[in-house]
C-alpha cells in the first residue's frame, strides 16, 4: 500500500513548483510579451487551474486521500473547461469544496468510528472505488468481482471487529448531508459531470455496501433511485452494479418476512436490526427485479436486463422470487437473438447441473415452465430450448435405495414378528425389561426425527417425488413434440398462420427431442413403450404418409435418427424379452436407397444407424441379413469412400455373424430352396425378407477391390476372400462410425496427394491400352474430382485429337503432293511428247525450209 501511495503522489508535485515560477519569471514575461498569441492562449487556461491548485493546496494538503479526489475531479474539469469557460469559472470554487466536502464528510465519519483499524483499508477502498469506476466505464463485470473479492475479505474482518459499534444514527448522518449536497450539485453541474458523478456515486455506494452490508443496507434504495435515471448508460451501470452487490450480499437462505404477530412481540435489538436488514434487502431486491423484468421488454435494455437476470438466477437460485427470474429466463430461451438465447440456455443448464444450490426445486420448476412454453408455442421454438434437457441428471440410486430399504423393513418386520412370537412364548420376560425396551425405541425415534429435521440433505422421498415429476414433464414435452411432428401439415399450417411464423424449419425440436429420448430411454415407463414405438415407426416411415407434400416429409437423417432411438429405447429396456424390430429394419433398408451425400444428409447419422441396427443386434434372419449385405454392397459402389468404408465394415460384420450368407460370395448363383419361395433376386423389393438376396452374387466386391481408395479396395478384397479362406481371426473391432470418421479425416489429405499419383498412373495405362474395359471407365470417371484432374484429362484428350487431326492434315498434304507430283510427271511426259512433236515439226520445218 505504501508503494501505491508513492505512485499516486508525484503528480501532485508540479503545482508546487509552479507557484515558485510565478514569482520569479520576469524573463518569461518578456518572452510572453514578444509572442502575444501564446500568452493570450495560455492565460485563459492557466488562470483557472492555477487558482484552483493554489486554493486546494493551501487549504487541505495534509490528507492524501483528498489529493486523490482532486486528481479525479481535475480530470473531469479539464474536460469540461474546454467547453465552458466563464460559466464554470465560478463553479470550480464552489464545486471543489463541495466535492471535497462530500468526500471529507463521508470519510470523516468513517474515520471517526474506527480510525486505527480503518486507516489502511480506507486507502484500499479508495483504490477499489477508482478501479470500480474504470471498470464500469468498460462495462465489465469480471473486474468488478475482483474488487468484490477483496472487499469481501475486508468485510469479514471488519464485521468481526465492529459489529456493535455502528448504529443507524451514523447512516442518517451520512445520508442527510449527502442528499442536500446532491440537490445543490444537481442544479449546478452539467450533464456530463453528472454522469461522472453518478458513476462515482454508484461506485461509492456499492463499495460501502460491500464493505458493510448490515449498516449500509439503505444505500440499496439509493442505488435503485440512481438507476431510474433517464440516461441509458447510467441505468445500465446502475443495474450492473446492483447485480454485483446483490450477488454478494444475498444470504444463503430464503428470507421469510415476520408475520404481524411476530412483529408485535418485543424483541431484542439485534433481532430487530436483522429484521430491518432483511426486510430492506428483500424489498429493494423485489424492486430491482421488477425493474429488470420491466426493462427486459425494452429492446435497448434487453441485453443488460437478461444478463442481470441470468447472473442472478445462476448465483442465487435459492433466494426469494427465483420463480419470477425463472419465468423471465424461460421466456427468452428461444429468443431470436443469439446472445440472449445462449445466455438463457447456459443459465438453465447450470441450474440443472448444480442442483445442490437450490435442492432441486428450481429444476422441476424450470422443466415445467419449458414444457408449458413448448406447449404454448406449438413446438415452434429454437432447438436449443429443448437441448437443455440433455444436461438434466436423474439419480437412479434414489429408487433403488428406497427399494432396498423397503425390503429391509419387511425383513425387519418379519424379524419382529419372530421376536414377538418368541416373546409370546417366553411370557415370563419381566415387565421392567419390556418397558425399558419401549423407552429405548421411543427415544430412538425422537432422535431420528430430530436428525431428519436438522440435516441439510433433503428428504429422499421428497427428492424422488420431485425427480419423478420432472421426468414426467420432460417426457410429456418429448411426446408432445413427437405428436406434433406426426400431425399433417394441413392442420398445422392453420395453427401456424395464427401464431408467429417460426423461422426454425419444419420440425425444429425433433432432433434434440430424439437425442433426449435416446439419453433417457432407460427411464421410460414400459406402459408408454408401445405408443412411443408406434410414434417412432410412423416418423421413420416419413411422417404422415397420407400427403406427400415435400415440407411435411422428414429428412433422411431425421428418419434414420428415429430408427436409432427406437433401437436404443428397446435395447436399454431389454431385460427379459428379445424383441425383433422388423419394421425399423425395413425402414433402414429403404432409407439406404434415399441417402444422398450431397443433400445435407449426415453420413455420421447413417454410420451410427448402421452400427446400432446391424452391428450391435444379436441375431438376424438369414434372409434379412443377406438382403442388407447385398444392398450395402451396391450402396458402397455409388458413394464416396467414407460411406463405402462404413458400409463395408458393416457388411463384413454381417458376413462374420451369418455364416450361411457367405453363399453370396460364391460365384454360382444360389437360390432354389435356400432363398425360400423368392427364387430370383428382386432389387426393388421394399421388404428385405422378400428380396431373395440369397439368390444373387456379390459381384460388386470385385469392382470395389479396384476402388481408387486403397483401404476400401483392401477391405473389399479381404471380404471377398472370406468365403474361401478359413482363417476366421478377423479383427472386427472397427465400427462403421469410426471407419467413416477415419476416412473423412483422411479424405482431405488423401485427395490431394495420393489420388493424383494413382490417377496419373492409371491414365497412362489407360492411354497405352486403348481398349479399356467399361467398368474401369466408370471407375475412372468417378474418380475425377478436382478441377485439375479434369483439366489434365481434357488436355490429354485434346492432344490425342490434335494428333489425329494433324495426321489427317499431313496425310492430305501428302496425298496432294503425291497427286501433284503425278500430275507433274504426266505433264512432263506430255510436254516431252509435245516438245518431241514440236522439235519434229521444227525439224520438219527446218528440213522443209532447208
Amino acid at each position: 500500500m505504501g508503494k501505491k501511495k508513492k505512485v499516486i503522489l508525484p503528480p501532485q508535485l508540479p503545482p508546487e513548483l509552479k507557484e515558485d515560477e510565478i514569482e520569479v519569471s520576469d524573463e518569461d514575461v518578456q518572452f510572453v510579451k514578444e509572442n502575444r498569441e501564446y500568452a493570450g492562449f495560455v492565460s485563459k487556461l492557466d488562470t483557472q487551474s492555477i487558482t484552483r491548485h493554489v486554493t486546494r493546496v493551501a487549504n487541505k494538503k495534509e490528507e492524501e486521500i483528498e489529493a486523490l479526489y482532486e486528481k479525479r475531479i481535475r480530470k473531469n474539469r479539464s474536460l469540461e473547461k474546454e467547453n465552458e469557460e466563464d460559466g464554470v469559472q465560478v463553479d470550480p470554487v464552489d464545486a471543489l469544496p463541495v466535492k471535497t466536502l462530500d468526500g471529507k464528510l463521508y470519510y470523516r465519519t468513517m474515520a471517526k468510528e474506527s480510525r486505527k483499524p480503518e486507516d489502511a483499508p480506507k486507502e484500499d477502498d479508495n483504490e477499489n472505488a477508482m478501479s470500480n469506476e474504470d471498470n464500469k466505464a468498460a462495462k465489465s463485470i469480471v473486474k468488478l468481482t475482483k474488487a468484490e473479492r477483496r472487499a469481501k475479505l475486508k468485510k469479514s474482518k471488519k464485521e468481526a471487529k465492529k459489529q456493535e459499534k455502528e448504529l443507524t444514527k451514523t447512516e442518517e448522518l451520512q445520508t442527510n448531508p449527502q442528499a442536500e449536497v446532491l440537490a445543490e450539485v444537481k442544479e449546478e453541474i452539467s450533464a456530463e459531470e453528472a454522469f461522472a458523478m453518478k458513476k462515482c456515486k454508484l461506485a461509492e455506494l456499492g463499495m460501502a455496501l460491500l464493505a458493510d452490508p448490515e449498516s449500509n443496507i439503505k444505500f440499496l434504495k439509493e442505488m435503485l433511485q440512481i438507476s431510474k435515471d433517464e440516461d441509458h448508460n447510467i441505468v445500465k451501470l446502475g443495474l450492473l452494479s446492483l447485480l454485483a452487490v446483490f450477488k454478494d450480499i444475498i444470504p444463503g437462505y430464503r428470507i421469510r418476512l415476520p408475520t404481524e404477530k411476530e412483529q408485535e412481540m418485543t424483541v431484542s435489538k439485534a433481532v430487530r436490526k436483522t429484521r430491518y436488514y432483511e426486510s430492506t434487502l428483500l424489498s429493494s431486491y423485489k424492486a430491482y427485479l421488477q425493474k429488470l423484468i420491466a426493462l427486459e421488454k425494452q429492446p435497448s435494455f434487453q441485453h443488460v436486463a437478461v444478463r442481470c437476470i441470468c447472473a442472478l438466477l445462476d448465483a442465487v437460485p435459492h433466494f426469494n422470487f427465483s420463480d419470477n427470474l425463472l419465468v423471465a429466463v424461460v421466456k427468452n430461451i428461444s429468443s431470436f437473438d443469439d446472445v440472449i438465447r445462449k445466455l438463457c440456455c447456459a443459465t438453465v443448464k447450470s441450474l440443472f447441473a448444480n442442483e445442490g444450490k437450490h435442492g432441486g426445486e428450481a429444476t422441476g420448476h424450470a422443466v415445467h415452465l419449458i414444457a408449458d412454453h413448448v406447449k404454448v408455442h406449438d413446438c415452434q421454438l429454437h432447438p436449443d430450448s429443448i437441448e437443455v434437457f440433455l444436461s438434466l441428471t436423474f439419480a437412479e440410486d434414489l429408487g433403488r435405495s428406497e427399494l432396498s430399504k423397503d425390503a429391509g423393513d419387511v425383513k425387519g418386520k418379519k424379524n419382529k414378528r419372530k421376536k414377538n412370537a418368541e416373546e409370546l412364548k417366553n411370557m415370563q420376560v419381566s415387565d421392567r425389561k419390556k418397558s425399558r425396551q419401549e423407552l429405548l425405541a421411543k427415544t430412538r425415534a425422537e432422535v431420528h426425527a430430530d436428525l431428519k429435521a436438522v440435516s441439510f440433505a433433503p428428504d429422499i422421498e421428497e427428492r424422488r417425488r420431485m425427480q419423478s415429476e420432472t421426468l414426467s414433464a420432460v417426457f410429456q414435452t418429448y411426446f408432445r413434440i413427437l405428436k406434433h411432428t406426426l400431425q399433417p401439415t394441413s392442420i398445422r399450417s392453420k395453427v401456424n398462420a395464427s401464431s408467429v411464423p417460426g423461422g426454425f424449419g419444419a420440425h425444429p425440436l425433433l432432433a434434440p427431442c430424439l437425442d433426449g429420448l435416446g439419453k433417457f430411454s432407460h427411464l421410460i415407463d414400459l406402459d408408454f413403450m408401445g405408443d412411443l414405438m408406434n410414434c417412432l415407426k410412423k416418423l421413420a416411415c416419413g411422417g404422415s404418409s397420407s400427403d406427400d407434400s415435400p415440407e411435411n416429409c422428414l429428412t433422411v437423417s431425421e428418419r434414420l435418427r428415429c430408427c436409432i432411438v427406437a433401437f436404443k429405447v428397446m435395447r436399454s429396456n431389454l431385460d427379459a424379452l428379445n424383441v425383433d424390430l422388423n419394421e425399423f429394419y425395413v425402414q433402414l433398408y429403404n432409407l439406404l436407397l434415399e441417402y444422398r451425400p450431397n443433400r445435407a444428409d449426415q453420413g455420421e447419422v447413417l454410420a451410427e444407424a448402421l452400427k446400432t441396427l446391424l452391428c450391435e443386434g444379436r441375431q438376424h434372419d438369414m434372409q434379412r441379413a443377406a438382403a442388407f449385405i447385398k444392398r450395402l454392397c451396391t450402396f458402397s459402389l455409388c458413394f464416396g469412400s467414407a460411406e463405402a468404408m462404413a458400409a463395408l465394415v458393416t457388411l463384413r460384420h454381417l458376413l462374420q455373424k451369418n455364416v450361411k450368407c457367405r453363399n453370396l460370395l460364391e460365384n454360382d448363383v444360389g437360390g432354389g430352396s435356400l432363398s425360400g419361395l423368392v427364387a430370383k433376386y428382386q432389387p426393388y423389393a421394399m421388404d428385405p425378407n422378400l428380396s431373395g438376396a440369397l439368390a444373387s452374387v456379390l459381384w460388386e466386391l470385385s469392382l470395389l477391390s479396384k476402388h481408387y481408395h486403397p483401404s476400401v479396395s483392401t477391405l473389399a478384397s479381404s471380404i471377398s476372400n472370406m468365403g474361401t479362406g478359413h482363417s476366421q481371426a478377423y479383427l472386427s473391432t472397427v465400427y462403421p462410425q469410426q471407419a467413416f470418421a477415419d476416412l473423412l479425416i483422411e479424405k482431405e489429405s488423401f485427395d490431394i496427394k495420393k489420388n493424383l499419383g494413382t490417377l496419373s498412373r492409371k491414365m497412362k495405362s489407360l492411354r497405352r491400352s486403348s481398349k479399356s474395359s467399361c467398368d474401369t471407365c466408370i471407375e475412372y470417371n468417378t474418380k475425377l474430382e478436382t478441377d485439375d484432374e479434369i483439366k489434365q484429362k481434357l488436355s490429354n484428350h485434346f492432344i490425342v485429337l490434335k494428333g489425329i487431326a494433324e495426321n489427317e492434315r499431313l496425310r492430305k498434304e501428302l496425298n496432294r503432293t503425291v497427286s501433284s507430283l503425278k500430275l507433274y510427271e504426266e505433264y512432263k511426259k506430255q510436254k516431252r511428247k509435245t516438245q518431241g512433236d514440236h522439235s519434229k515439226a521444227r525439224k520438219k520445218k527446218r528440213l522443209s525450209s532447208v
Partner: protein
Amino acid sequence: MRPLDEKETTAVFEKLFKFTGNNLKNIVESPSHEGPDDKPGHYCFRLQKNKVYYVSEALVKRATNIDRNKLVSLGTCIGKFTKGGSFHLTIQCLNLLAVNAKHKVWLKPTSEMSFLYGNHVLKGGLGRITENTAAGDGVVVFSMSDVPLGFGIAAKSTQDCRKLDPNGIVVLHQADIGEYLRMEDDL
C-alpha cells in the same frame, strides 16, 4: 376339384391374412414357372374333398383329366374345411406362411422339442419376438437358426409379454412339423 366359392374364399383369405398381413398379395400374385409355357402363370386355390390346395394353373389344367373321385391330391394342401364349415390351416402350408410371415417368434433351442410335441409356447422358451404383435395375431414359430417349426396364435401382445411370468403362454399351438410324424395317417 372345383374353385372356391365366395364364402370359402373369404374364409381362406381371412385365415391367411392373419398370418401374412399385406404379404398375402405375394401369395396370390407370385408367378409359377411350372408347365411348358414360357410365360409364367399364377397360383390358384382349389377345393378337393374338403381340402384346399394351392396349385399352379398349369397343374390345374392337367388335373382336369382325372376323375374327381379318384384325384387324391394336387399342389400344396394348405388347409381343410371342417364339417362345421370353418377353415383350418394345416402344417403343409408352413413354407408359404414362413416366407410371408408378419409376426414371428423364435424359440430357444431348449423349448423347441416341447413345441414339436404339440405344446404351447411358454414365455420361458421365447428367444425373440417380433415387435408389436397383438393378441390374436397369427404367428409363425421359428427355431433360433431360422428353421420354421410351426405356427400358432399369439396369446399375448408383445407389451404384455414383458410382464408375463415365465410359465405364461405366449403362443397357442396350432400346427407344428412334428405332425408329419405324429399324424402321418391323417395328413
